[in-house]
């Protein structure tokens, strides 16, 4: 059995874990002192050696991303933290920032120093006001103690940190849409290249990193890259947050080395809710192809999940039992993608709309077998044809559900209605209902 490794969450059970005094009590802000005494390139090398990969979904090596920032170019550089956690099922950065905002701030100072940025931003979604409060207070306290602002800890390094609050747009979690939004425009993705490392915020070299990625940096600086890379698997190093939700006995957050399996996490969490069986699950949010009970032993690292036909994504394990209609689940996700499509690219804007029309009919039992092929045809015409991956995400649940549950779509057609009772899948239903 894989052992859990609470690092970021180690002190969340203390009532004041979000305060600067609690963070310092547990060794907080010692990594920044250490980093500021190093050469910036040595900090980048340390993060490269640790093998840290982006925790926001794509898994790109964090140190390499930092290394792409041109140096000696006499341009302003920016660090932007993507705290726009909105991928359905994803719920790790929000509790992290609520319970320990200072580990993020410490990581921001270190990362900004490494890429020679004197201005950093946290772009947080606007629908989590208490997390906004916690970050506001944490930033104010860090300034008051000389951990942000001019000449941090006497190092000569200056950093301004601004908390920027979004306003309800899933697409702003896409890094170039996020940058447009931060510049004061509608949040629509940009064509790449150029990548943000060359032309990001205000067309200046910019690193965009996920909250958890940046929050992992202080532990790497303090404990060394070997400590970090000793956890995890060959190409997926370190610990990470797994979020278990849905029809399980105990939903919640688990910090574990990369490569733990759903079977292990379910064993730790008490299994599927009593009297029920696992039907389907997402390994990393709704944009990652669905898995079934055949995938319980897939190692949940970047390579393992990929080899099994899905993506590790945000490690958002949404669990659905046999009471759940997969067509209803996929329709609802598709409605989400249609609603959140920014409208910039025609295939996504029009395609997601048509997918919803077809799926609504299918869910109501009003479609025909030809509609299933039409779904796949539309999907084929929107995947990879837009500036960003939103439409690709919309395709994932549709393709994977047709692969694993085509028979269930056919049942809707045969019956002329949905064969499931939605009450049975609610938490209010008694076990065995």
């Amino acid at each position, binding site marked *: 059995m894989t052992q*859990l490794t609470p690092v970021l*969450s180690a002190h*969340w059970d203390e009532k004041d874990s979000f305060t600067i005094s609690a963070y310092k009590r547990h060794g907080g802000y010692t990594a920044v002192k250490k980093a500021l005494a190093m050469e910036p390139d040595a900090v980048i090398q340390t993060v490269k050696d640790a093998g840290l990969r982006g925790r926001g979904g794509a898994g790109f090596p964090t140190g390499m991303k930092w290394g792409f920032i041109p140096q000696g170019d006499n341009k302003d550089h920016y660090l932007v933290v993507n705290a726009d956690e909105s991928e359905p099922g994803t719920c790790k950065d929000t509790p992290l920032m609520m319970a320990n905002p200072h580990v993020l701030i410490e990581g921001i100072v270190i990362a900004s120093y490494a890429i020679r940025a004197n201005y950093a931003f946290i772009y947080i979604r606007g629908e989590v*006001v208490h997390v906004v409060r916690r970050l506001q207070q944490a930033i104010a306290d860090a300034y008051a103690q000389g951990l942000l602002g001019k000449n941090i800890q006497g190092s000569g390094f200056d950093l301004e940190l601004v908390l920027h609050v979004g306003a309800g747009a899933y697409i702003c979690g896409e890094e170039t849409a996020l940058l447009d939004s931060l*510049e004061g425009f509608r949040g629509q993705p940009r064509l790449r290249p150029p990548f943000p490392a060359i032309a990001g915020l205000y067309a200046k070299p910019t690193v965009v990193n996920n909250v958890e990625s940046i929050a992992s940096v202080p532990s790497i600086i303090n404990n060394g890259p070997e400590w970090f890379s000793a956890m995890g698997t060959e190409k997926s190093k370190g610990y990470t947050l797994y979020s278990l939700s849905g029809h399980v006995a105990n939903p919640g957050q688990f910090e574990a080395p990369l490569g733990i399996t759903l079977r292990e996490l379910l064993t730790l969490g008490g299994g599927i809710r009593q009297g029920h069986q696992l039907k389907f699950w997402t390994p990393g949010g709704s944009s990652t192809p669905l898995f079934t009970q055949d995938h319980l032993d897939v190692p949940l690292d970047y390579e393992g999940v990929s080899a099994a036909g899905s993506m590790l994504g945000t490690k*958002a394990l949404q669990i659905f039992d046999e009471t759940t209609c997969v067509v209803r689940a996929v329709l609802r996700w598709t409605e989400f993608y249609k609603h959140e499509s920014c409208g910039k690219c025609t295939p996504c804007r029009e395609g997601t709309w048509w997918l919803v029309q077809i799926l609504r009919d299918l869910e109501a039992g009003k479609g025909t077998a030809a509609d299933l092929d039409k779904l796949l045809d539309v999907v084929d015409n929107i995947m990879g044809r837009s500036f960003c991956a939103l439409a690709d995400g919309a395709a994932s649940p549709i393709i994977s559900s047709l692969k694993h549950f085509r028979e269930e779509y056919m049942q809707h057609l045969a019956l002329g209605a949905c064969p499931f009772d*939605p009450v049975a899948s609610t938490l209010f239903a008694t076990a065995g209902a």
Partner: protein
Amino acid sequence: MAFHSDQMAIMDSIIARYPRKRSAIMPLLHYVQSVYGYVTSDGIEIIAEKLDLATAEVTAVSTFYTQYKPEPVGEYHVGVCTNTLCAVMGGDAIFAAVKEHLGIENDGVTEDGKISIEHIECNAACDYAPVVMVNWEFYDNQTVQSVIDLIDGATAGNPPAPTRGPNTLRTWKENSAVLAGLSDGLAHEGLAAGEPSLLGLRISQSAGGNS
């Protein structure tokens, strides 16, 4: 209605946070909502004037984001998560019950202006499903009855406290000010973490700290 000089000073302080002033458009829109409760044409005009933009450019941004409201919402804006996981686990039943209880539809406001409702997308609290947000504060692990009670309490001016949030529920306008970056001094209130957030930690601790 014009903005007072102290309100103008607040807007200037928001603009001063950024290297380029156009970046202040989103917090300024949150600020306008903290004053009026929604994005008014007055608000659009003052932002355009301060940022040297056309009003159409400000409107274009305002209408892109769902948290900016073109019409007044209630003092308590209730968002029921109906994305797949919450919907399946009870969000659909909760939203149907809320609509029936209040006699209003999605995006509707009660006649007394106390409550408005909206079905919302995933709010990053799936381990607390079904989730309801009021003025963007967390109400975790909800049932049909708990949400009806919440709404009735809010209507009577006595809403229950958020599950993970301040000790008392603030109004829509008050929370909009926080989103604009104006501290209300309540960061220390409420839990550090709810039980689901602590699940892995607790299991690790009960295994002797080296699980």
